[in-house]
């Protein structure tokens, strides 16, 4: 009997990703379980770290720190959380939509679980938000992001039950979507800054 899907199991990804992938493929967890027992809580980590880091140290952009009023920081963190959840859910839905083309499993639970596992290192790595020095964050999160990509390429064929070659193609197609989602996050962010939710800037 494989372990049931939970946040603890996601923690295991850091040490034994292969086992976790096999367990999910065997269990085929329900979408609700993945979301409420794992992804939701993982998604809370980055905004929480960002909130405390920004309040304590301000944004460090290489010159003197930029401090923001508490309500602005709170608004940014709530929107950050919402954007992460939307990104997570939309990636899983896109994966399910793509699955038919690549003969992969169309179970929403499995797609959500895959995305939760792929995103887990980023959620844990976001601990670096506690000190919001942008370059430090880039330095830490770039290798973490590479690790996430590795998990996607390695995990997708197992979790969604398709061959390694089709898995590679599907993972690449998903990377296209994830890159777009990432850059959308930047676009949404600066559009919010321009409309007053962000640092004091003259636009």
């Amino acid at each position, binding site marked *: 009997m494989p372990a049931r899907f939970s946040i603890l199991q996601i923690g295991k990804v850091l040490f034994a990703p292969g086992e976790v992938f096999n367990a999910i493929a065997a269990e085929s967890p329900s979408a609700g379980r993945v979301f409420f027992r794992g992804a939701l809580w993982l998604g809370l980590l980055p905004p929480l770290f960002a909130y405390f880091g920004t309040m304590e140290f301000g944004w460090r952009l290489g010159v003197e720190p930029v401090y923001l009023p508490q309500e602005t920081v709170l608004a940014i963190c709530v929107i950050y959380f919402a954007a992460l959840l939307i990104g997570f859910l939309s990636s899983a839905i896109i994966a399910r939509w793509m699955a038919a083309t690549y003969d992969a499993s169309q179970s929403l639970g499995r797609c959500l679980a895959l995305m939760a596992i792929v995103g887990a290192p980023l959620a844990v790595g976001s601990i670096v938000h506690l000190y919001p020095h942008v370059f430090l964050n880039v330095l830490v999160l770039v290798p973490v992001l590479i690790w996430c990509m590795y998990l996607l390429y390695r995990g997708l064929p197992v979790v969604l039950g398709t061959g390694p070659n089709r898995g590679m*193609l599907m993972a690449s197609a998903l990377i296209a979507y994830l890159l777009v989602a990432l850059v959308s996050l930047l676009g949404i962010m600066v559009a919010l800054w321009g409309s007053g939710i962000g640092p004091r800037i003259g636009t």
Partner: protein
Amino acid sequence: MTAGVYVAAELVWPTIDWGLPALSFGRLRTAHTTLVLFGFGVSALIGTAFYSVQRTSHVRLFAPGLAWAVFYAWQAAIVLGAVSILAGWNAGKEYAELEWPFDLAITAAWVGFAIVFFGTIAKRKVDAIYISNWFYGALIIVVAMLHIVNSLALPVTAGKSYSLFAGAQDAVVQWWYGHNAVGFLLTGGFLGMLYYFLPKQSEQPIWSYRLSIIAFWAFVYTYIWAGPHHLHYHAVPEWLQSLGMVMSLILLAPSWATLVNGIMTVSGAAGKLKTDPALKFIVLALAFYGLATFEGPMLAIKSVNVFSHFTEWTIGHVHSGALGWNALITFGTFYFLVPRLAGAPLYSARLANIHFWLALGGTILYALAMWGAGVSQGVLWLSLDELGEVRFSFNDVMAAMRPYYLLRFLAGLMFLAGAVLMAWNLARTVAGRRTILVAPPAIVGAGAPA
């Protein structure tokens, strides 16, 4: 690319121009863009156009002697042009810095390219003109139009001329040229390459031929209007800026129609991935094509552009397109084409795989470094103090960018190292062999890629 890596290093260690004007950032950066755009990009496009137009038209090239003349003229014009830029000649137009003698030489070579290409199409043995040839044809016609209009100038001496346009009019013409060079050369031209080499390499027909035709016409119609998005909040009419923004947003539809077509075409070729290192390059090129064609319209939105303009974000965007899309698809095409031209297998598939990871890692690192730098710069440029004055000086902001520039330099070095590996791999593949001659393929079905 080497020049690009060197100018990236100059931004980290500004004194490594050693006081030589030829190595100053202004000249070397211009040489970098000219050599990459016209030396690498256009050479790859002319070469692949001459190859694929013969295969898809089922005939030999029209006027092969002229094709050789185009080759020599183009290489000579670009090499001498780069030397002239290093010597300080500059027409003062971005991506069109070459002075008038080179503009004339380029025009002559381009006319030769057009005669050979359209001459071959004219004597084709099938009715349909295959989709890749539509894109290559649009490249030839539109780039000719852009180059001639944008380069109109009054020569004063051999090395100096003055543009016929001035002020806001000059800016509009400049970006009508600049953005459509991106559109019809770096996007449209390379889509021609994609539409021939992707089905060939994956041994699959195009997923939807009809979609490719619709996307072509929508693409051609829309792109030509998008240039003014480079001039948001500048001294050009407001309606022109809004038109540029709207057309840039509409452009997403035809761009992504092609993306879907490409991804669906390659989705059936899973079996080939293991044996064919070239296919990986094309698959990843499609992912970056998707990114760049989404990011472009997003940056064209005025409320995003007010923040991103004059930051490294723009440079990151250009390079996720130029490295991730243009260079990766060209590398994939080289790995496909060179062994076939030499009649020998690729010297080392392992080296090609190492190249793949270096290219992918370099591109991602480049984009991430520039996103970090761009967003920081955006905040810093626009930050106001309690009195409503600009809070940080130009010097402060540039000093804060140094770590990102170092990261970008390393990313460029990785990418360049991969390209050097490829050059060696391909040189070993063709060493001691002559180009093999094959007859144009027999007709197996109208319009099918041969």
